[in-house]
């Protein structure tokens, strides 16, 4: 039971930390470094350990992200939970992919997330497609192996305790 609890804390620690990372102020030239950390960590947990996370976690962290970024309430939560749902459906395939294919799958999932944002922004009527956003999504899929390795090692440390 305590093991389950520590896993739960680990998930939320990572999610909160990544949401902080995603609002750290960067100068305009560095804005392509705004990698969608929250989406990446959600993808990791959904694909690797779906038993300790659910759609409502994705919804909740999306809500927090919306408030942090000052967007319209419900935008990120919708996009993130949809992305999580798709990732869950295909998790068994993605898990056994070779690494470059996995990166490609992550890229597509991140693009789904970004697409939902674009749709909602378009409906509201303030659509701005910036180059830095696309670059940050590409960077996000490029660092996926590193990110996955880091989180796996952290998680195995927690599990072994």
């Amino acid at each position, binding site marked *: 039971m305590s093991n389950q609890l520590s896993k739960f804390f680990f998930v939320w620690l990572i999610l909160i930390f990544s949401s902080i990372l995603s609002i750290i102020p960067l100068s305009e030239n560095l804005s392509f470094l705004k990698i969608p950390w929250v989406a990446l960590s959600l993808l990791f947990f959904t694909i690797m350990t779906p038993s300790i996370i659910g759609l409502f976690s994705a*919804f909740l962290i999306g809500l927090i992200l919306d408030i942090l970024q000052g967007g319209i309430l419900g935008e990120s939560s919708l996009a993130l939970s949809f992305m999580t749902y798709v990732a869950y459906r295909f998790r068994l395939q993605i898990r056994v992919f070779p690494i470059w294919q996995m990166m490609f799958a992550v890229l597509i999932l991140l693009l789904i997330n970004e697409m939902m944002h674009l749709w909602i922004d378009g409906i509201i009527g303030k659509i701005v497609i910036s180059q830095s956003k696309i670059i940050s999504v590409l960077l996000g899929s490029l660092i996926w192996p590193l990110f996955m390795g880091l989180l796996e090692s952290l998680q195995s440390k927690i599990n072994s305790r």
Partner: protein
Amino acid sequence: MPFTEKNTIDRSNPNFSGLRIILIFIISLGMMYLDFQGNYINKLRSYLSLTVLPLQIAANTPKKLINNFKNRLSDRETILTENQQLKKENIQLRSKVQQTYKLESENKRLFELLKAKPDDEEKFIFADIISINQDNNKHQIIINKGSIDGIQLGAAIADSSGIIGHIFRDQLLASEVLLITDPEHGIPIEIARNGFRAIAIGTGSYDEIILNDLPNNSDIQINDVLITSGLGGRYPEGYPVAIVSDIEMIQGEPYLKIEARPIANLKNINEVLVIQNNKKDHQNE
């Protein structure tokens, strides 16, 4: 690590069921509608923002630490020269303030002669920046004074040189400020030289706002100063906003395309002033 326990087998995890995604869709679409249409859930929003305030502070500590570190590193000499400069500036500003006293009393006397009421006095509240949103299409900052400190929705924000924006969401301990360069922001202005009125709209770039409702034959020149006109009741009258940097006349178009550069340095804002109209009634929706 990946293949442990039940992870691989549970095909019908209720946490990921199709029912839940539909439920989430309905909830978030409903929330977006309410938030976008009529600010129905501002209360919910202000309480939720209270809970994420620590995160915002945490996200901005690295920047503050770096700034602190820089300050520590700057040597004695530069601090001394800076101090001297500031002293000089202070004396100059004080002498200017003396002149304004005289002008103010004179102004009051003249108003009395006319039997008109002078403008309401404004109240100033100093505030610090908690966090800056540097998205391309959202120019917002969060300041560390909220409705507990007496800040009202819609109050104007200025720094030492000019108008920055206004409060568009007040929370308990902090408030969110929409900058004048946000693409959704419009500020009623007038040209200081001749009193022509217009509306300046943000562009999404930190050093540009545009005016596109002045007709082709209007009297406007490069380097004209734009000040707030006080129309609309949100911004107080007479604060500097921007300087005209470019005027373009497009053949066949009825209006000029005018670009202006905000006087306040919006890229790095440090301390701000919240300008509140004392007489303004509290009936904000």
